[in-house]
């Protein structure tokens, strides 16, 4: 058997914004794209304890301790955690570990919404997509989940999609971000 320790690899391989479009004006603004795919993701079919009030139902997201819990479909709660997937047995028998099934990206900054509105038809206005809102919708022509949870006062959006689309979606977001001097950075390890 192999003597190497298994390495977890993210589906996202590009690290630079590519900017395929013709760029005349100089980019202005601020947006940062992070690959958060290594975060653990557990799918529950009932509301995890302690979230009944904060994640009131479909369309809501909340932070709980160091976790993020959101719901974008009836009977589905996704729990994100910065820590690697829990040891065996600690997730409820009805829950499913989907860490490996999904890619997770984060878009943060004053131009995050301006970036996303190029590829996603959600209304990012504070009235309709405030911090604490979650939605599964079409992003860059694939189904993806958009969760807004601001960080240190900056608008911040987690984008979760099927793993195999991860590299594609990361490319689409970084392309959209180029206009705002967007850059891909290493994940800081916190949610």
């Amino acid at each position, binding site marked *: 058997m192999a003597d190497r320790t298994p390495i977890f690899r993210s589906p996202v391989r590009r690290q630079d914004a590519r900017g395929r479009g013709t760029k005349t004006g100089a980019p202005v603004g601020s947006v940062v794209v992070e690959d958060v795919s290594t975060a653990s993701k557990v799918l529950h079919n009932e509301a995890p304890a302690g979230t009944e009030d904060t994640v009131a139902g479909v369309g809501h997201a909340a932070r709980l301790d160091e976790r993020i819990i959101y719901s974008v479909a009836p009977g589905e709660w996704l729990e994100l955690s910065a820590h690697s997937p829990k040891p065996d047995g600690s997730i409820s028998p009805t829950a499913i570990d989907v860490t490996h099934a999904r890619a997770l990206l984060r878009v943060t900054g004053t131009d995050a919404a301006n970036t996303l509105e190029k590829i996603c*038809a959600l209304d990012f206005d504070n009235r309709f997509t405030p911090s604490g809102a979650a939605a*599964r919708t*079409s992003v860059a022509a694939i*189904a993806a989940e958009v969760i807004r949870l601001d960080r240190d006062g900056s608008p911040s959006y987690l984008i979760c999609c099927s793993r195999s689309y991860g590299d594609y979606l990361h490319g689409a977001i970084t392309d959209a971000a180029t206009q705002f001097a967007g850059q891909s950075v290493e994940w800081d390890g916190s949610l």
Partner: protein
Amino acid sequence: MLLIDCPYCGPRNGSEFAWQGVPSPRPDPASTTPLEWRRYLYEEDNLAGWVEERWKHRSGCRAYLIIERHTATNEIRAVRLLGGTPL
């Protein structure tokens, strides 16, 4: 682009939804006849006017919806969950 007010997700673009047409009831498989079955498979009312169709919020919550739409104007006047599942 239609705007469909999903009972779970709120108003979303029509492209997130898959159209399934006006559903017809599945005949009893035990007693059905070829003629009845093929009517079920193929025949359509294809009305020009208000119809109750089934759609699926495919890129969203994946719920099945019954939508009242006018097939000549595409106006939508009601959206509800299939089977009326309570929210």
